[in-house]
């Protein structure tokens, strides 16, 4: 994210003397915040909520490392790894979609967004299989503290993937209608930023809950 200060919503793009990021619109010598500031506030709020959750996880784990390690072994690492791949790739597809729209390549934008959504759906499918296996094994929020965190964290994230997909769906429909283009990609960037957040959260969540011992 750029360094535009989130503390003052009125401040427009922040003037910065150094060269801009090498993006398509680097003709202008000013760094700007991609997407809407309000969306960034939303993203920061979400990140904060998850951060508190991650910290709680760390404290709870420190109190009973053995239980956490033992329960962690029952998680499906392969499913988690596939899902990481799916989300990261999907995020890259969104970047390609925005680049395409910035070139006024509407068809490209639609294609890349559809691909990104496919990645998101793939994530949900894998996750549903994973949940089904766990619930079949009789695991619930009340089984132990580790599973409480595992289910809560992944479920809150799951809901964010769904919200992200709804947002991508709207963006796809709008791109299809030709609402975005070389001079109008503000909304697209806002939605893209949100999808990257969903991705980022998973990149922290996966090692923390599935891998780290």
């Amino acid at each position, binding site marked *: 994210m750029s360094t535009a200060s989130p503390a003052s919503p*009125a401040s427009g793009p922040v003037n910065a003397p150094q060269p801009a990021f090498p993006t398509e619109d680097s003709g202008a010598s000013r760094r700007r915040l991609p997407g809407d500031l309000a969306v960034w506030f939303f993203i920061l*709020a979400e990140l*904060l*909520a998850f951060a508190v959750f991650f910290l*709680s996880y760390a404290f709870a784990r420190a109190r009973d490392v053995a239980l956490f390690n033992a329960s962690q072994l029952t998680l499906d690492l392969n499913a988690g790894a596939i899902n990481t791949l799916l989300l990261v790739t999907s995020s890259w597809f969104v970047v390609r979609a925005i680049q395409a729209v910035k070139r006024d390549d509407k068809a490209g934008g639609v294609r890349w967004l559809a691909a990104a959504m496919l990645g998101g759906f793939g994530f949900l499918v894998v996750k549903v299989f994973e949940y089904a296996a766990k619930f079949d094994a009789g695991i619930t929020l009340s089984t132990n503290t580790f599973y*409480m965190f595992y289910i*809560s964290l992944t479920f809150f994230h799951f809901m964010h993937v769904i919200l992200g997909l709804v947002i991508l769906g709207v963006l796809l429909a709008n791109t299809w209608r030709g609402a975005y283009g070389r001079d109008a990609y503000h909304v697209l960037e806002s939605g893209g930023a949100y999808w990257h957040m969903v991705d980022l959260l998973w990149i922290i969540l996966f090692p923390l809950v599935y891998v780290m011992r």
Partner: protein
Amino acid sequence: MQYKSQAVATPYFIAAIGLFAGQILFGIVLGLQYVLGDFLFPAIPFNIARMVHTNLLIVWLLFGFMGAAYYMIPEESETELFSPKLAIALFWIFLVAGALTIVGYLAVPYATLAQLTGNDLLATMGREFLEQPLPTKLGIVVVALAFLFNITMTVLKGRKTSISIVMLLGLWGLAVFFLFSFYNPANIVLDKFFWWWVVHLWVEGVWELILGAMLSFVLIKVTGVDREVIEKWLYVIVTMTLISGIIGTGHHFYWIGAPEYWQWWGSIFSALEPIPFFALTVFAFNMVNRRRREHPNKAAVLWALGTGVMSFLGAGVWGFLHTLAPVNYYTHGTQITAAHGHMAFYGAYVMVVLTMISYAMPILRGRAANSNKAQVLEMWSFWLMTVAMVFITLFLTAAGILQVWLQRVSESPLPFMVAQDQISLFYWLREGSGVVFLIGLLCYIASFFVRGEEKTA
């Protein structure tokens, strides 16, 4: 005043202040009953006085919210109110129903009142803050729906602003969540869930939206800062309120028989609840610092800043104090809760309604602002009430810490009533602060009658 129909707000504001005075008088009685247990007994027993104190608070805040909506919405929508007549009719219905309810509380034993009002048909009585008899509850629903109809129609026919949409969202939420008060399951765990879905989702959910919308409206008017800037802040506040407040309901589920994971969910999400209030504080000060005009109504600006600070302290800081499950294990239901309740209600909701009244009443009375003399008295009332409330909160917090220690932590825990005797000094101090608060309120009321050179619109 820009639109004639905004005038319907006047009786709502006057009734609000009148009921506010009643609430404080009962508060004084209650405070005394803490130390002189049989004061006014059997005419007004403690439980009745407490019920009147809390119910009057809710009713006068509702009058304040409705008055605020009637004042704000036409101006935001740039059109006259859909039906001023309906607004006036609803005012009288609500006032009479409210008054009858209070008379009922005071005149007959609560059980008799329940019998008289058909509680055996649909049992809804007996839950804290929702003690109203069935006819009153139904009345509240009818008044709320007709009020919402009136306001919504006004917004629909006029300009739609973020402020009026957030206000509508808050008011509709208020009405919808009140419906849970009609469902009284026999299972006491379920009962608590439904009860909190009214109480919590009101004060830590939709009421915060109303608060944000009201404060934003006044800040636009008194600072002249661009609407877009104010709306951005409003979005932030609304978002944080909903992210933290909805699952934050879990901080009421710790010890009611709900699964243990609520201790985590409740702690984590409610720990974020101070953030929207902090944003509110920064918002208020930031906007006033960046003001593009000097509004002649200094008192209203003071109330607006006060709301920002006191809501953060009362709701944010004092809420956080006992919101984490391991802390709440000890503090649950002690005077710590009372301390939080007092400052949160005052700082957030009392002050925002007084902000709105302070801004709107002079205009409704045909001037931009009151005379300097009247404003000085009003500012005195601000400081008297606010400082008194700070002390009430501090004394109750001290009482609460002692209570937790004596009754729950020490090697040889004391029984409840013995512990109460031990902390009576703090109750006396609290009562003293309460009297100062009453003096502040009397100054506030007096400020409406102070003449002097008025500032024209």
